[in-house]
C-alpha cells in the first residue's frame, strides 16, 4: 500500500523531473493534475485572485471549469476566518455557507489550499464525490504538496513575467530608428536591435557574442574615411570606463557614402555593467 508520505515524495520527484523544454504555463497544469491523480480527487483547480473584482479558475481538471469568474470577497472572507490555513470539508457546508457551490456541485468532501504568492494569490481546490476522512497523514501530504505548489506557482509567475518583459523591451528597442548595440562587460553577452544587425551585417537581431560585435564594429569603422579622427576619440573614450561620447562622426564611404553619428554610453546598474552604442544614420 502506498503511504501518503510516499505520495508526497512522488509529487516532489515528478514535478522536479518536469520537462523544462515545455512552456512554463503547462507546468502548473501538470502539477495540479498530478495532485488530482495522487489524491484520487474528482476535481482539481487553481482559483487565482487576479484583482479585487476577479477570482478566475485556471488549470482545472476537468478543463471545462477553466475561466469561470467568481467574486473574490466572500472567498477571501472564509480564508480570513480560517487564518489562511488549509480548509478541510469532510462534509460540504450548507449552500448558504458554501462559497464554491458553483464549482463543487454534488460533491461530498473538499480541500481548499491557500497558496500565498503575492501579489496574485491563489487557492487550490480539490473535491471528491465520495466522503473523505482526511486523516492526519493525508493532511501532512497536502501540506508538503502545498509548499511545493507554492514554489511551482512562484517559478511559473516569475518566468512568465520575465518573458513578458523581454518581449516588451525587444519590441520597443527594435522599433527605435537608431542602431543599438549593447556590449556587456562580462565578455559573454551582447545584444543588438534590427537596425544594428543590418548596419553591422550580422545574421540577425538579439543576443550576439561581444567578440562578434567588436569584430563587426571594427569592420564598420574600417570603412570610414576619417579613421584617424575616430581612433583619436576612441583612445580618449576607452581611457576610462566612465567616459562617454556623443556626436562622434564616422564618415563611411562604402557601400554608400554616409555620415553616422555615434554615441557610446557606459551602462552601470547593480545587475548590469556594459556599454551602449547608438548609431544615428
Amino acid at each position, binding site marked *: 500500500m502506498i503511504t501518503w508520505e510516499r505520495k508526497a515524495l512522488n509529487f516532489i520527484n515528478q514535478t522536479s523531473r518536469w520537462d523544462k523544454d515545455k512552456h512554463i504555463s503547462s507546468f502548473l497544469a501538470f502539477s495540479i493534475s498530478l495532485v488530482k491523480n495522487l489524491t484520487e480527487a474528482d476535481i482539481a483547480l487553481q482559483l487565482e485572485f487576479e484583482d*479585487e473584482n476577479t477570482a478566475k479558475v485556471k488549470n482545472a481538471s476537468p478543463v471545462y471549469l477553466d*475561466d469561470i469568474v467568481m*467574486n473574490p470577497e466572500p472567498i477571501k472572507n472564509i480564508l480570513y476566518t480560517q487564518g489562511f490555513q488549509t480548509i478541510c470539508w469532510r462534509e460540504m457546508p450548507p449552500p448558504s455557507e458554501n462559497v464554491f457551490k458553483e464549482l463543487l456541485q454534488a460533491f461530498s468532501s473538499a480541500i481548499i489550499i491557500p497558496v500565498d504568492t503575492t501579489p496574485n494569490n491563489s487557492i487550490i481546490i480539490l473535491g471528491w464525490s465520495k466522503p473523505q476522512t482526511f486523516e492526519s497523514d493525508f493532511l501532512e501530504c497536502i501540506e508538503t504538496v502545498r509548499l511545493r505548489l507554492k514554489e511551482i506557482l512562484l517559478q511559473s509567475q516569475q518566468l512568465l513575467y520575465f518573458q513578458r518583459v523581454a518581449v516588451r523591451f525587444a519590441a520597443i528597442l527594435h522599433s527605435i530608428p537608431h542602431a543599438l548595440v549593447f556590449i556587456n562587460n562580462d565578455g559573454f553577452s551582447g545584444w543588438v536591435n534590427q537596425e544594428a544587425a543590418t548596419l553591422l551585417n550580422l545574421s540577425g537581431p538579439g543576443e550576439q557574442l561581444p567578440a562578434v560585435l567588436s569584430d563587426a564594429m571594427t569592420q564598420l569603422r574600417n570603412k570610414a574615411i576619417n579613421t584617424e579622427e575616430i581612433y583619436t576619440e576612441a583612445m580618449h573614450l576607452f581611457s576610462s570606463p566612465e567616459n562617454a561620447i556623443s556626436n562622434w562622426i564616422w564618415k563611411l564611404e562604402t557601400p554608400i557614402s554616409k555620415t553616422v553619428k555615434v554615441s557610446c554610453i557606459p551602462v552601470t546598474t547593480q545587475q548590469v555593467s556594459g556599454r551602449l552604442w547608438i548609431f544615428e544614420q
Partner: protein
Amino acid sequence: MDITRKNNIHVCGNTDAFQTIVFSHGFGIDQTSFSAVVPSFEKDYKIVLFDNVGGGKADITAFSPKRYEGLSGYVTDLADIIQQLSLEHITYVGHSVSGIVGVKASIQYPGLIDKLILLGSSPRYLNDPESGYIGGFDKHALNDLFAAMENNYHAWAIGFSKLTMRNEDRPELAAAFAATLEAIRPDIAILVAKAIFYLDCRQDLEKVTIPTLVVQTAEDIAVPPDVSEYLEAHIPNSRRTKVQTHGHFPHISAPREVVAAIASFL
C-alpha cells in the same frame, strides 16, 4: 458593491407576478433598447432590466479588464443579479452576446433560468473552415474591424452602427446606436468587442437543457442565417422563429414582431 447600483437594475411590471422576464442588452446599447418591448409584458410579469458593466449607466468603477476579458464575468454578474434579487421562474431574453451569457449561465447554474430567448445571438462569429462552420466573419475582417476601432473609434462607431442597424429609411435608429456606442470608453469597447468576436462557445450548446427560442432577423450582418440554424440544430430543446426585419436589433426596429415571438414562447 451594491448590485443595483453596479448594474443599474430596474425592476418593473407586475412585481407580484409568479414569472419573471429578465432582459439583457447586447454590445453597444443598454437596457433602454427594450423600451418598446417591455410594456407588452408589464401586466403579467415581473420585469428586470439592467446594464452590463462597461455599458449604459452601469457603475464604471466596477469594470475590471480581468473580469470582463471574456464572458465569464458577465455570467457571474447575471447569477449575482438573479440570486441577490431572489428572482424565480425566469425567462431570460438575451440580445446578441447576452444571449450566449444566458446559455452559459443556464449551464453553470442549473435551475437559475427556466427558459432562454436568444435575440440575434451567435456562438462564434469567426468562420471555421475546418469544420465548415459559417460565423459570418473571417480573420481578415475581424483584424480590420479591430484596427478600425483602435485607429478612430468615433468614425468606426458611426460606420458600424449603420451596418448593423440597417433600416436605412429610419436613420435615427443608427444614429441612436452610434450615440450609445460612442458613450462607451473606447478601451472598454475594444476589450469587450474582442471578447465577443473571438468567442467560441459552440461546445456549450449541447449542454443547454432548458427550452430555448432562437429569434432570427431577415438580414443581420453580425449573425447570418446559418448561425441561427446552427443554434437550433445544436441546442437540444430549441426552436427557431424569424422576424421580418433587417439588422441586428429586431427589438428596436420591429418590437411588435419580437413581442409576438416572446409571447408565443412564454
